[in-house]
């Protein structure tokens, strides 16, 4: 898909973003979609990205456990991104690596490398709703955010912590989601989320994710330094602390194949 020289998505973006200028009676759904497309457009062109993150899991008694992970991501135009996560700790899973070719609506392709067995395992991607590394983040929270993955509805514009935000409702359009809907508070300057509420299959508020300390890279791409998710039912929480963001790193498809998975470090 990534080989297409012309990005079909952008033809759609051109049509859809130019429409509101002329159509006065824009529906809430159209406005929500237009904001999603603008979000996507503004975060296009980083080509590849590497970063390190520390994940701090906290149970209801406040006991902490930590994971350290390095991530590499390849921007794929017209499809979901390719990503590789390499685990440095806990030490018993050091060297375990996870390769994912994400897609908007068809299932992602995923492989796991188990260093003790030297085994590459193709795994099912149906566990989107399952916890990532025992944390309060699920796989779907951390996967590539494609416009086509949701249907959108603009709710209102308001203020959050002194910033003007769009409040958007999203409903997953892909299968096996653990959510019925997500409410996002999207900064109107950065077009990046400050807060997301997740509603579970019983339509109850399951968890709240907050983003903080956004930094701008390459004069274009906003990335949060901290993300924190609280599960309202289990009272557990997980913090992500990002560092060493790098963009346009020269990574290619070859850095995201099963051979590179086996020697990921």
């Amino acid at each position, binding site marked *: 898909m990534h080989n297409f020289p012309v990005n079909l998505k952008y033809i759609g973006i051109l049509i859809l973003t130019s429409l509101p200028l002329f159509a006065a009676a824009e529906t809430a759904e159209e406005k929500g979609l237009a904001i999603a497309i603008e979000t996507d457009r503004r975060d296009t062109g980083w080509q590849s990205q590497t970063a390190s993150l520390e994940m701090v899991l906290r149970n209801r008694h406040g006991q902490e456990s930590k994971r350290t992970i390095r991530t590499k991501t390849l921007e794929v135009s017209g499809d979901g991104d390719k990503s590789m996560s390499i685990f440095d700790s806990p030490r018993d899973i050091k060297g375990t690596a996870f390769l994912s070719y994400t897609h908007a609506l068809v299932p992602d*392709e995923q492989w796991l490398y188990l260093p003790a067995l030297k085994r590459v395992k193709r795994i099912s991607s149906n566990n989107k709703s399952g916890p990532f590394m*025992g944390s309060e983040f699920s796989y779907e929270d951390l996967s590539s955010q494609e416009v086509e993955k949701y249907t959108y509805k603009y709710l209102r514009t308001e203020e959050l912590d002194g910033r003007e935000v769009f409040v958007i409702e999203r409903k997953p359009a892909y299968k096996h989601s653990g959510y019925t809907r997500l409410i996002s508070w999207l900064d109107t300057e950065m077009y990046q989320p400050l807060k997301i509420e997740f509603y579970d299959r019983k339509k109850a508020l399951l968890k709240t994710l907050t983003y903080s300390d956004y930094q701008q890279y390459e004069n274009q791409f906003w990335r949060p330094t901290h993300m924190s998710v609280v599960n309202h039912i289990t009272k557990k929480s997980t913090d992500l602390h990002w560092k060493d963001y790098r963009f346009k790193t020269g990574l290619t498809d070859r850095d995201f194949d099963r051979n590179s998975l086996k020697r990921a470090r």
Partner: protein
Amino acid sequence: MGARVSTLILSATLASIPAFSYSGEWSGYISGEFRAFTNSPADARQHDNNFSFAAQPEYYTDWDNGQQSLTIVPFVRWDENDDNRSHADIRELTWLKATDNWELRTGIRKVFWGVTESQHLVDIINQTDLVEATDGEEKLGQPMINLALISNWGTLDLFVLPGFRERTFPGEKGRLRFAPRIDTDQAIYQSSEKDQHIDYAARWAHYLGDWDVGLSYFNGTSRDPHIMFGQDDKGQPVLIPHYELIEQWGLDLQATLGDWLWKAEIINRSGQSDISGQKKNYTALTAGFEYTIVGIAQSNADLGIISEILYDERGDDALTPFANDILLASRLTLNDEQSTEFLLGMIFDNDDTARLLTLESSRRFGDNWKITLEGQAFIDIPNTNTELLRGVRRDSYLQLEIARYF
């Protein structure tokens, strides 16, 4: 080992490391293990409950923007009772060079091929370190030169394998062994070059949508010995491993279709003697599925149901106890902070009463410790000369291992 060619490979591996130093990193584990047996041994010389300790440090360094690396993984185990199980090995000593179109790995390494869970038919590069684990999952380091050619048509791996490694077997005092014991000192070879015969192998692997496929070929000394009757220097009956020259074709396939993983491994081997001593070309197969229920009972846990058939066309003459068997297993993954996992499986022999029950479970505690509880029960194993599992019929055990990772 000890082959001149593998010495050459090692020298080349070490010579490839630039003289100036790089900041490498150390990792690894040390572990203590306690095995408790439910029955007294079948042979009075064998031990009862047993302690053992192991360590496996790992050194890694890379340079050339990560395109070249050196990995060194020594392994050592001390066993309270079994001298054969107290052993050391170099699991890995590899220099890697990667480019856009090829990857070259030279040195001692472990390579895994295959997809199924119950046994690994196509996996043939490394010798089994049988004293480590009865399930055959632990392997000895194999000297090799491995060139991987990478293209849009998949990956073609070519192997030159100098220096054959003999299989490890429990000693006289050891449990979980054949009866009579295997005398590794008397091992014999078909090739006059013995353990210096150079073996060759190749594998093409690719994926197409939901399908992952591998086609492999091996030509050289069989990792599985043919077993012959003999005597030790005290005149006691022993079994003698006989390593023959074989040729093997292998195919492994996996289809990943939603909650279902469909898996198959098929081999065709020639040159290997069966139990009756006849060399017959034969085909063997493992095939089955793993079905996963994500988030069972609205929890975070996943429950996997696994079933595989294990088939070998030689039947009772096969060198494996799994010539016509079925595996039924379930895997429970809690997806919690401690990565708690359970795997409980039973292999049923379709031809007699024998059943093999296996438990594997593990849980992390703290950030650096892991506790593993494993066990095997050998149920209704016929006490007959033709039963390969006869030697372990009283060796059902439960094993607790505590490992500290660093």
